């Protein structure tokens, strides 16, 4: 167990590439930032898993159904692990985190505040949103100072990489399909391009605490650009139109330049006032209250055993 004489000494440890473990001393600020970050990730895995689950009965074919089932289990399993690690920081209990989430008092990623109305949306999520999440997670994993989170991220990244291959296969199927399939995905792309782009967040501030604490290792705009440079050529190559009138390919630099981003949506969405936020949070809250009896029964068994 590591102890520090001052916050400066703790910061020097971080600057040196040190890894913080759950029972180490840490500054209150660090604890609060790491907790907030992991809670947001855990909430997003849970809400993402529930979104995915909506599509289990509606998947086109057995193979896709297996894929959706597996992805649902993955996301819920990740949430489970992440809530354990978050709770260990002693800021909130797991129950408090869940109750805050279902009461709309805490946050989850913007992309889970939108409705997935067609299979095209599912493909857009698997192809674009999962890729964006993976790019972010890889950047966190690379240099993350909080040991318990970093070890879980390593496995999450392996699984998300597998989801991405699924997404690529789904996109190929739809891209090589009929006009109806093409139009279905184009309509979904029109809905999902901006939310996926905004998953990275606005440009990082120069004094970003998450960077100082080595939770993030690269600024948001760098990660966003990495995603644009990869997916803009792929999507246009498949014959789809990216919903950004200012998007252009600079033949001199070889880079794809995007137009200005309207961030007003993101602010509302993260305040749990996105297009589908109320329904999603309401559904999750209903499942939580419907399963109260299971938790009560487990508590009773545990009490009896003690």
């Amino acid at each position: 167990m590591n102890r520090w004489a001052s916050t400066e000494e703790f910061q020097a440890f971080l600057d040196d590439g040190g890894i913080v473990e759950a029972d180490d001393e840490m500054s209150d600020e660090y604890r609060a930032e790491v907790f907030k970050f992991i809670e947001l990730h855990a909430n997003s895995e849970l809400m993402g898993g529930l979104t995915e689950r909506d599509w289990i009965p509606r998947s086109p074919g057995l193979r896709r159904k297996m894929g959706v089932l597996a992805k649902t289990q993955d996301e819920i399993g990740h949430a489970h692990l992440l809530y354990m690690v978050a709770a260990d920081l002693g800021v909130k209990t797991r129950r408090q985190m869940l109750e805050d989430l279902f009461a709309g008092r805490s946050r989850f990623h913007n992309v889970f505040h939108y409705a997935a109305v067609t299979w095209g949306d599912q493909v857009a999520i698997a192809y674009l949103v999962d890729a964006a999440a993976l790019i972010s997670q890889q950047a966190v994993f690379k240099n993350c100072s909080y040991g318990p989170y970093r070890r879980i991220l390593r496995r999450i990244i392996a699984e998300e990489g597998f989801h991405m291959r699924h997404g690529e296969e789904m996109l190929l199927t739809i891209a090589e399909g009929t006009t109806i399939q093409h139009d279905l995905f184009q309509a979904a792309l029109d809905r999902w391009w901006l939310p996926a782009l905004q998953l990275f967040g606005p440009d990082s501030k120069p004094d970003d605490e998450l960077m100082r604490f080595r939770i993030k290792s690269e600024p948001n705009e760098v990660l966003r650009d990495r995603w644009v440079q990869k997916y803009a050529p792929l999507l246009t190559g498949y014959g789809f139109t990216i919903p950004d009138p200012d998007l252009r390919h600079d033949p001199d630099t070889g880079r794809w330049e995007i137009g200005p981003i309207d961030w007003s949506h993101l602010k509302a969405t993260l305040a749990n006032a996105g297009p589908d936020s109320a329904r999603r949070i309401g559904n999750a809250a209903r499942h939580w209250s419907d399963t109260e009896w299971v938790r009560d029964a487990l508590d009773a068994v545990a009490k009896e055993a003690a």
Partner: protein
Amino acid sequence: MNVAVDLVDAVRAAVAEVDDPELPGVSIVDLGLLEALSVDADGAVSIGLIPTFSGCPALSLITELVRAAAAGVEGVRSVNITFLSAPAWSVERISERAREQLATRLTVAVERDGRAECPRCGTETVERSMFGPTRCRAIHRCPGCGEAIEVMR
């Protein structure tokens, strides 16, 4: 020298290079997925694999990877892959090397006689949920160091 035996060994070595899609750095052969392998005189390869759990979503990708690996061996003319329904997969099929890789690289423990040890401190872990991120993994807690651990079961 028996050419056919050499080819079997070469194909086996190639298949052993295939990692589990969700456990990078761990070979599917070390995980006990390869049950049968034969090559006939014409270079036709037959491979029998065992899924960890039926309905594992990685099966189609594993098939694709194994096919590519086997087809890349000189002398192989065709590759036929089937998933066998018996014997059933169990953690006993996981090699010592894979156990070591899972523990050190991925902090994943493997059950032995219904118990698992924390890959970080060796303490016996406690199951928190039999449902982990995949069907073959449960979520445990280490009472020693507090780590949240996935356990292959």
